[in-house]
């Protein structure tokens, strides 16, 4: 057994040289752009949820700067924004290191993102420790916001407590009235949270919950679950699942000719539609935004999406991401200075505009974003509720075509 301490010491020295970087622009100066730091899960397991977000983020900065940037009162001018983006590879420990880097080496002004609760949980603690306001994106688990942190906000959309609010509202006015509901849930904190909240609200509304089954994300065969569903014949089948994980379920529901007044899917997306085609014809779902919504910043968002070739129906988590950028921009403007404490104050219990409506944060930094109820009609998603923004008439019973 030979020893190679030379090699070890040499490589140890390489750590300091290779990885340390000189500090970036001065914090809060009026001559430098506003720097926003973030990570994206571009590789690894979470990368399967969205494509082309890095480009979208860059284009977002370009478009904002084209429109003049962010007005900062204390500087008497508008400042441009720029992003520092890393790939966290879907690994929480890597994300933590990278956010530490953003905060202490790249010296960003504020933090946005990350996505996904596995990563948001650890990263929020990093931001808190460095006292850098962070507006997380697709981090939906409420307990992450209940840790008493003062510098943490998030823009998951929709939030679990409001997820199917409009859908159940709609159910009050349909005819024939549904009486029973069956929940099929993917084993995932967000989806389980949705089922917990909305099965209770369904009961409160007079719908009897006749069954609730859970399945793992890699489940391939649903015959057992569907056999139970078929024998119970519920009026509404509520599928609470990510789009990808539900593909086999959807296909097998079609094959087994499961009939119901409506099948509701919490993530009815373009990606799902591409994979299962007509199997989801007539299904209802939720969408946070759709083309034609004329809310605030719609023009900016439309342009960004078009230029970066990201379709909100395909990647429904996109609006949440963009909202985190929009919120921090408005907070800086509201604070009037590129100053962390002032922006923190501006964010606290703040109300901010977004294309899908206002975002109101509670004292934990948790927002109130809701969603529109959609239905897939002739292969296209249309908004069916609320009636004043609906783009088409609801077809009820929804899955009569099966």
């Amino acid at each position, binding site marked *: 057994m030979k020893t190679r301490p030379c090699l070890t010491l040499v490589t140890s020295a390489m750590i300091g040289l290779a990885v340390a970087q000189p500090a970036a622009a001065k914090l809060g100066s009026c001559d430098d752009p506003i720097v926003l730091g973030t990570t994206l899960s*571009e590789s690894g397991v979470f990368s*399967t949820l969205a494509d082309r977000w890095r480009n979208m983020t860059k284009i977002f900065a370009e478009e904002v700067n084209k429109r003049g940037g962010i007005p900062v009162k204390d500087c008497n001018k508008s400042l441009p924004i720029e992003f520092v983006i890393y790939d966290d590879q879907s690994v929480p420990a890597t994300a933590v290191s990278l956010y530490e880097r953003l905060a202490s080496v790249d010296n960003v002004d504020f933090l946005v993102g990350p996505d996904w609760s596995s990563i948001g949980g650890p990263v929020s603690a990093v931001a808190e420790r460095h006292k850098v306001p962070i507006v997380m994106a697709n981090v939906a688990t409420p307990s992450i916001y209940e840790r008493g942190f003062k510098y943490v906000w998030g823009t998951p959309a929709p939030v679990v407590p409001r997820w199917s609010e409009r859908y159940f509202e709609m159910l009050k006015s349909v005819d024939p009235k549904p009486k029973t509901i069956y929940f099929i849930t993917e084993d995932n904190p967000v989806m389980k949270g949705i089922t917990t909240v909305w099965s209770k609200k369904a009961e409160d509304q007079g719908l009897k919950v006749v069954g609730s089954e859970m399945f793992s994300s*890699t489940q391939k*065969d649903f*015959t*057992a*679950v569907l056999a139970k569903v078929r024998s119970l014949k519920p009026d509404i089948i509520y599928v609470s699942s990510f789009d990808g994980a539900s593909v*086999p379920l959807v296909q097998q529901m079609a094959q087994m000719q499961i009939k119901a007044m409506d099948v509701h899917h919490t993530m009815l997306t373009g990606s799902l539609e*591409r994979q299962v085609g007509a199997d989801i014809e007539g299904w209802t779902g939720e969408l946070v935004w759709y083309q034609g919504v004329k809310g605030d910043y719609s023009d900016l968002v439309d342009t960004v999406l078009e230029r970066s070739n990201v379709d909100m129906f395909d990647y429904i988590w996109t609006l949440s991401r963009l909202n985190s950028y929009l919120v921090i921009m408005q907070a800086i403007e509201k604070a009037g200075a590129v100053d962390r404490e002032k922006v923190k104050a501006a964010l606290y219990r703040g109300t901010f505009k977004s294309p899908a409506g206002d975002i109101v944060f509670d004292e934990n930094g948790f927002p109130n974003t809701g969603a529109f109820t959609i239905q897939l009609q002739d292969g296209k998603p249309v908004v069916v509720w609320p009636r004043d923004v609906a783009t088409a008439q609801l077809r009820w019973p929804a899955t009569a075509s099966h």
Partner: protein
Amino acid sequence: MIEVFLQVLIGGVMLGGLYALVAFGLSLTYGVVHILDFSHGTLLAVIGVISSLLYLAGLNPLWIALILVPCAFAYGGAFYFALLRPLGSRGPFESTVGTVLVTVGALLILSDVTSVLAGATPKNIPIRLGVYIIGDVVIPRMQLAILLATALLTLAIHLVLTRTWFGRAIRAVTQEQVAAQLCGVRSVWLRTMTFAFGAGTVAIAAVLYVLTYPVDPYMGFGLTVKAFTIIILGGIGNLPGALVAGILLGVAEGMTGLYWDTQWAPAISVVLLLVILAVRPQGFARKTA
């Protein structure tokens, strides 16, 4: 209730056939060349992604298979010849380590390049062929077709292994390499061909897989683990055994979902594997004499 049982049974058989298909290529490469290929499942996922893109470009699955199988064959042969074969001439420790590193590296490269070029979101080939209905039991035509294709493939490969010179040569090389060489079998060429053949099988499996379920570039390793489970249960190098093992596994998963809890179904394959190995530590490998 008998209809539910039958439905679950049939669903399990069809799912199992697909599992077996995933394991075939591995059974060959591991059985003959004794290489633990960690990139096996990822290759399948990547070819699946490519198939789905070709389908979007307008090709039908048969053409897709006809194009991709030779490509995979070439890839497999080249991969073995350039990267794995030279390791065989090193000592047993180094060749094992080397294969692990090479296949892990390949896994990382394959998933990353595919993700960059084609995007990481799940893709499939959404063809619907309708269903047969017998009484209360529903049998999807597509999955039946896939099961038949799998059975045919098993038969075809089995015949090749037992009736052709190539097949006998493979088995000779597996059992006694030096003696086989003395009899005129060019071992290196043969192993390269086997690996290429295994990769070709993976391509067929990939096309059939995406006709049923979606794939993404990062799901591969999970498939590899399942494939290893099946070849242990079925006997290494024993393809009909792998088919039986796969079907058994599919049915076991379905039954777990029916009689116990759907959440535990994915665990059943691992538990079965561990139980079998505990009872019979040498596995079920039969001598392919």
